[in-house]
């Protein structure tokens, strides 16, 4: 099918450039409710994504795309429709990559066991979660979902690029329950993603979550006021998202990036200076790729170094539009650790200190950097020890809050983020009781 589409595109003089990629995948999905397997699912996917460019006056281009899901679907009407759409889209020109621009690198993005035995791996992960919970006692597994996915992509384009990649992806989600005060139960929700099952670190994660749910059962609402806050573990995963958004070419092209080369990304920084990169080459990284959606190889881009914006991460299209080098789509977010140990970050000062590990969502706003997170798990720390907290929220603006940031020396991988295990933000607004 891929060859047939490529042949048709090659013979169609209306298009000055084209690309077709074939994606075939399969997914084994397992759902459990308490001890009962609620559902088992086997899913096959396949599609052919086609992109076409047509030349327009003044060096501009028209472009469009379409997806075939059925090999029996007649190709000719789809090409005619794509041409009709593309000739109306009058955009600045950009080119698809040539073979000499996409140096192939060996990037590990597939786990052999998932490729060979996805359903079995899913069972093993689910049983590992269940077994860890059962051994702990006093905590119940409410539900789990484990997906093991495999996908193979073959991409060719009009300039001679011909590349294939394989990706695997394992997703594990579960909920633990523990008895709280009176009749109340407390839950802890967890979701982890990785290329392979081992990287999920299921036993350690479940052990941490068992502590969290037990402590949550006696948690109190934090008091309202300014506090020093250490955000750790799952809480860190979204914390850098607004920096990522402003470091990307799209923000520059659309006119709202606040970052300029050579300028500080945070004004008046008095804490650790941010060093942030996009790196699509991290072995086994969720954001790693052999090539992106248009066939460009990924690389490391040191966007922010010691608090200063250096280089913009640009996919092929925005790179052409901005006249910048193509770096490929954003890969893994890599943040340099700090000099302070976790113990040092967790030393209380004059203000209340909180260690917060889970939020409903933190989601810093891409444009403004404003964030807020309802506290799902954490502790108030004082010289007398730790008091679990739950409920209430923290809020701020990352571009302001990072002026007082300190990063832990210890590192961790959460999703696509490889960076410090914890970030301390002093004088953050906590809204809770009182």
């Amino acid at each position: 099918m891929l060859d047939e589409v490529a042949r048709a595109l090659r013979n169609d003089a209306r298009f000055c450039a084209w690309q077709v990629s074939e994606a075939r995948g399969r997914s084994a999905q397992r759902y459990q409710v308490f001890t009962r397997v609620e559902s088992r699912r086997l899913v096959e996917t396949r599609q052919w994504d086609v992109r076409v460019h047509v030349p327009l006056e003044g060096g501009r281009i028209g472009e469009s795309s379409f997806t075939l899901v059925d090999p029996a679907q007649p190709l000719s009407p789809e090409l005619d429709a794509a041409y009709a759409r593309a000739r109306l889209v009058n955009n600045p020109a950009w080119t698809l990559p040539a073979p000499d621009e996409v140096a192939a690198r060996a990037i590990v993005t597939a786990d052999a066991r998932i490729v060979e035995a996805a359903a079995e791996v899913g069972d093993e992960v689910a049983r590992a979660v269940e077994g860890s919970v059962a051994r702990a006692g006093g905590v119940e597994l409410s539900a789990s979902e484990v997906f093991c996915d495999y996908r193979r992509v073959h991409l060719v384009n009009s300039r001679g690029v011909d590349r294939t990649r394989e990706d695997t992806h394992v997703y594990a989600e579960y909920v633990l329950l523990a008895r709280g005060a009176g009749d109340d139960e407390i839950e802890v929700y967890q979701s982890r993603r990785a290329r392979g099952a081992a990287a999920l670190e299921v036993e350690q994660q479940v052990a941490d979550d068992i502590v969290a749910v037990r402590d949550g059962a006696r948690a109190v609402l934090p008091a309202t006021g300014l506090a020093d806050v250490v955000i750790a573990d799952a809480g860190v995963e979204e914390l850098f998202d607004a920096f990522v958004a402003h470091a990307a070419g799209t923000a520059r092209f659309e006119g709202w990036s606040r970052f300029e080369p050579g300028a500080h990304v945070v004004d008046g920084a008095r804490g650790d200076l941010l060093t942030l990169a996009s790196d699509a080459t991290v072995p086994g990284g969720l954001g790693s790729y052999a090539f992106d959606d248009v066939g460009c190889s990924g690389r490391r881009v040191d966007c922010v170094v010691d608090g200063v914006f250096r280089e913009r991460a640009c996919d092929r299209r925005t790179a052409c539009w901005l006249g910048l080098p193509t770096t490929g789509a954003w890969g893994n977010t890599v943040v340099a650790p700090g000099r302070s140990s976790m113990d040092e970050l967790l030393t209380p000062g004059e203000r209340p200190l909180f260690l917060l590990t889970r939020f409903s969502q933190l989601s810093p706003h891409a444009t403004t950097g404003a964030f807020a997170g309802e506290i799902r798990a954490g502790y108030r720390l004082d010289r007398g020890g730790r008091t679990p907290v739950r409920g209430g929220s923290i809020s701020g603006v990352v571009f302001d809050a990072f002026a007082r940031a300190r990063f832990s020396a210890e590192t961790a991988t959460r999703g696509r983020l490889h960076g410090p295990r914890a970030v301390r933000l002093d004088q953050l607004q906590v809204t809770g009781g009182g």
Partner: protein
Amino acid sequence: MDLRDRKVALAAAVDDLLRVVPYAHAFAQVREGTAFRATTRATAIEPLDPVCGVVLSAWNGETMLEVSVPSLDDDAVKGATARLRDLITRQGSRTGPAIDPGAPLERDFAVAEHIPVSSLSLEERLARVQAIKDRVHALDARVKNAVARATHVRTQEIFVGPTRRLFQDLRRAEMVCLVVMEQGGHAADLHGGRGRQGGAEHLTLADDDVAHLVEDCARMLGAERAPGGSYRCVFDGDVAGLLAHEAFGHGTEADMFVKRRAKGAGYLGKQVGSELVDMYDDPSLPGEAASYFFDHEGHLAAPTRIIERGVLLAPLTDLVSATYLGMARTANGRRESVQRKAYTRMSNTFFGKGGDRHDALVASLDDGLLVRHARNGMEDPKGWGIQCEAYLAEEIKGGKRTGRVFSPVIITGYVPDLLTSIDGVSDAVEIGGLGMCGKGYKEWVKVTDGGPSLRLTARIA
């Protein structure tokens, strides 16, 4: 493609499966559409990611076993049936609750387009979004990026079960506008629009709506955060809808009851809000963007009264959850696509109207906030915590707007506290049509939410 042609092949597959399991059904889906997008610096006319495939489901007494394939042809369906039979053999049969297949029914349903999308040329549709984008720029020089997007989606679905053969043809259109502004190092963005079932008649956005969007976005530039604390507030219909969705929408999804993840399970028949609070989920609302005729498990759409006069009445259910709980089925068994499992999901979720005028509610605030432009929220059905975010709140003093604006606005708190504090409900319900909803952090389905304006006490972070 006319999906109805596939009914016979799917019925044969279900009959085959029923030889080895007590219950089976088939669900096929074809979703296609096109998005027209005009931004400040580029345009696009792109088909939406298509969905095309079949999922076969077989109940072995304990587990719903499913095989999904990305094709509707006979060979693919036969292959899926063989794979599912193999899975059934490997899993064996279990003793468990029997699934009620429902009363026999064979019907076809369709949403009408008053103005067929196909009656507008590509040029005409593109011109509509370009006009909105240009209008945004004409209104304010501080606009850095303007995006107008017109989308139309057609979804055809077949459900074939032991007793039912149903087909629906759903058509939806929406127009969305996003504004990004910057001034003096301060940035703000805001989006708005409308989405409804139907055709090109909904691919519009009134000039006044665009103007208000730009005006509100400009007011957010450099706006301060509201000091954290408890406030008397009026939520407009948009923010009220977000509250409905997050507060007791997710909290009454019955699959969360089965997992003991919903505190509401212990509160059925009990007071959870003030007597002014009525709340519904209704997939049968004519014309709303998340409406449908039957859910993905073959149950016909009908309204569910979730809360009446502050009393929690009934959960939303899917097939398996209702079976395990012994509760009535509602038409809320929905999938992201054939590639994903069916869960209990909301459709159009909203508070019922009251007797106050919106302006009177605002005028009654001595010192408070008018909260507008919902952004997003997160549920906590187990703890009844809530987090909702709105883009904008206007300060009200002595019943009048002072001109002071806060942005963004984070509402947190304990759901029954919020609902119990409601002491004013306006007389008109607004339902927004742009929502999508995840289950946790995935499984996205089309939903809407809305409500009248609510006067209440809320904790602002």
